């Protein structure tokens, strides 16, 4: 039994945590990767700073240009990418596990469309500022999720019902959104579409802090719910027979996942495909079809950090919204996933 997992703590004692070996190795690897990507992000840019300068800036206070660039511009962006990546990936992992479908991801099912409706209303009706847009996104997303859950609740949450109702509501909101876009002025429409792409441009600490305060406790909550999530995978009957409260666990998990994704995307816009792709990629890396949420989260963080690096530096002089990179890569990934599933079911 020792070869399968590592034990932190004592076998006889009051506390012990069990970690799968490959998962642990991958987790550490991903953590290092995230740090490396973060540091590389600090380094790249039009203002190239040497490692010594970066180290000095991080450790000693000061007011030089380097300080502004690193501490005020690049660092919040990196931290946000990390947290948003983790949040989205964890939300995706929870949804995909509960809905038993690799494509049952919150951005596919339509929780994002509600957020976009909220933003559109704020921009078109109230000519809102960035913070107003963030609030609109949060309210829109949560309200939509609430409506979807309510409509799907019929003595419990059935998987397919939740998926289909999500898709229906999303299609409905989409049609309304497109119509609002059409009726709005061109600048409002452009702002809304730009927001819908998802971007980390112009991230500051002022924008970042509320998201961190909201997301980090929720991420920790989700991570601690890993065990019931894995138990639910065995089927409702077995899960209930081993002591899991099915309906309340499922609801709590879905609500936390929705909340963490909604909060993470208030400032960045709905970054597509991290929630969809990160759990699957983590599963392939871990060689475990249900990887721990921590691994999934770290994979999402690494994905978003790399996507952001690409978005910033791929094209000379243009900072693409990170959503364009993720959607292109995501599209490619989706194609590969579908084709491999097709090959698997035809063999």
């Amino acid at each position: 039994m020792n070869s399968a997992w590592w034990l932190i703590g004592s076998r006889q004692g009051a506390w012990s945590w069990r970690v799968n070996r490959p998962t642990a190795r991958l987790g550490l690897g991903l953590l290092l990767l995230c740090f490396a990507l973060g540091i590389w992000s600090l380094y790249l840019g039009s203002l190239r700073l040497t490692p010594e300068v970066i180290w000095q800036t991080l450790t000693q206070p000061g007011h030089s240009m380097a300080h502004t660039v690193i501490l005020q511009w690049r660092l919040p962006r990196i931290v946000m990418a990390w947290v948003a990546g983790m949040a989205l990936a964890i939300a995706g992992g929870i949804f995909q596990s509960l809905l038993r479908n690799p494509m049952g991801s919150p951005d596919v099912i339509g929780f994002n469309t509600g957020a976009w409706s909220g933003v559109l209303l704020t921009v078109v009706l109230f000519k809102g500022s960035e913070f107003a847009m963030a609030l609109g996104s949060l309210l829109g997303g949560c309200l939509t999720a609430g409506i979807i859950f309510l409509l799907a609740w019929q003595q419990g949450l059935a998987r397919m019902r939740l998926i289909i109702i999500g898709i229906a509501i999303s299609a409905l909101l989409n049609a309304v959104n497109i119509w609002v876009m059409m009726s709005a002025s061109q600048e409002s429409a452009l702002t809304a579409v730009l927001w819908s792409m998802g971007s980390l441009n112009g991230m500051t600490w002022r924008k970042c802090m509320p998201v961190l305060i909201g997301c980090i406790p929720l991420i920790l909550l989700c991570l601690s719910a890993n065990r019931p999530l894995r138990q639910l995978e065995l089927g409702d009957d077995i899960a209930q027979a081993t002591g899991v409260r099915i309906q309340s666990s499922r609801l709590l998990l879905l609500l936390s996942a929705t909340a963490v994704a909604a909060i993470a995307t208030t400032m960045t816009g709905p970054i597509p495909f991290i929630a969809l792709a990160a759990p699957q990629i983590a599963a392939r890396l871990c060689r475990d079809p249900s990887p721990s949420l921590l691994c999934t989260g770290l994979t999402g963080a690494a994905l978003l950090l790399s996507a952001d690096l690409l978005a910033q530096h791929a094209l000379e002089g243009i900072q693409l919204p990170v959503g364009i990179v993720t959607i292109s890569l995501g599209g490619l990934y989706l194609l590969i996933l579908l084709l491999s599933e097709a090959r698997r079911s035809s063999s």
Partner: protein
Amino acid sequence: MTTYAYHPADGAVLSGHQLTFGYRDHPVACNLDVQIPSGSFTAIIGPNGCGKSTLLRTLCRLLEPQHGEVQLQRHPLAHYSGRELAKQIGLLAQSASAPEGIRVLELVARGRYPHQSWLRQWHQDDEQAVTEALQMTDLTELAHCRVDTLSGGQRQRVWVAMVLAQQTPLILLDEPTTYLDISHQIELLELFHALNHQGGRTLVAVLHDINQACRYASHLIAMRAGCIVAEGSPNEIVTAELMQQVFGLSCSVIPDPVSQTPLIIPHRSPIWL
């Protein structure tokens, strides 16, 4: 909440009183009384759709009865928390699905869930229970194999091992042998028999094969259309009249030459063309 002045007969570890249960609008059974004797291997038999599996699910609280009450050790089931109940009753469900790629050891270890918590995720009790469960089901060599590479019979043994690792005094089995070939069926039934006789656990199983039920079970419950038609030891209740009543089957009953329990020999019925 209605209180029932109900005292289960002595020796009944799990009992149901005036149970009405079923799905949504169509109740499967009304005002059913059932007793599971402590330390017995009880088999529930009956035709398709008579409510056997539904009864089993109601007894372990997977289904809430519309009326009536189930009691475990003379306490209503409703008084137990999910975790406490899971430490008392184990279930081998028909609808179990193993996550893709999971290994035997990991799946068996999942049976320890009710004994673990977020803070205490692995204890030497868990290790001992899992090792014992693997030994009892003869899976120790296969512990590191992927479950989806195993044969049907081996896979069922993995699920049985998981329930055993749960270390419950009562085990409910929903059609445990239905999809297995004859040798695996007998293997599993012998294991259950040993668990009951030597391990002292109370077993309740829904079985389709009457002869197997007669041979291995110590207590039979025969159901038809949501009602219990007869209950008692196989020797007492299994007669040709009962088979006619429960299954509409015309048969003869003789003592099994190996185990001396009732053996059903169905009569041939002419087919009208």
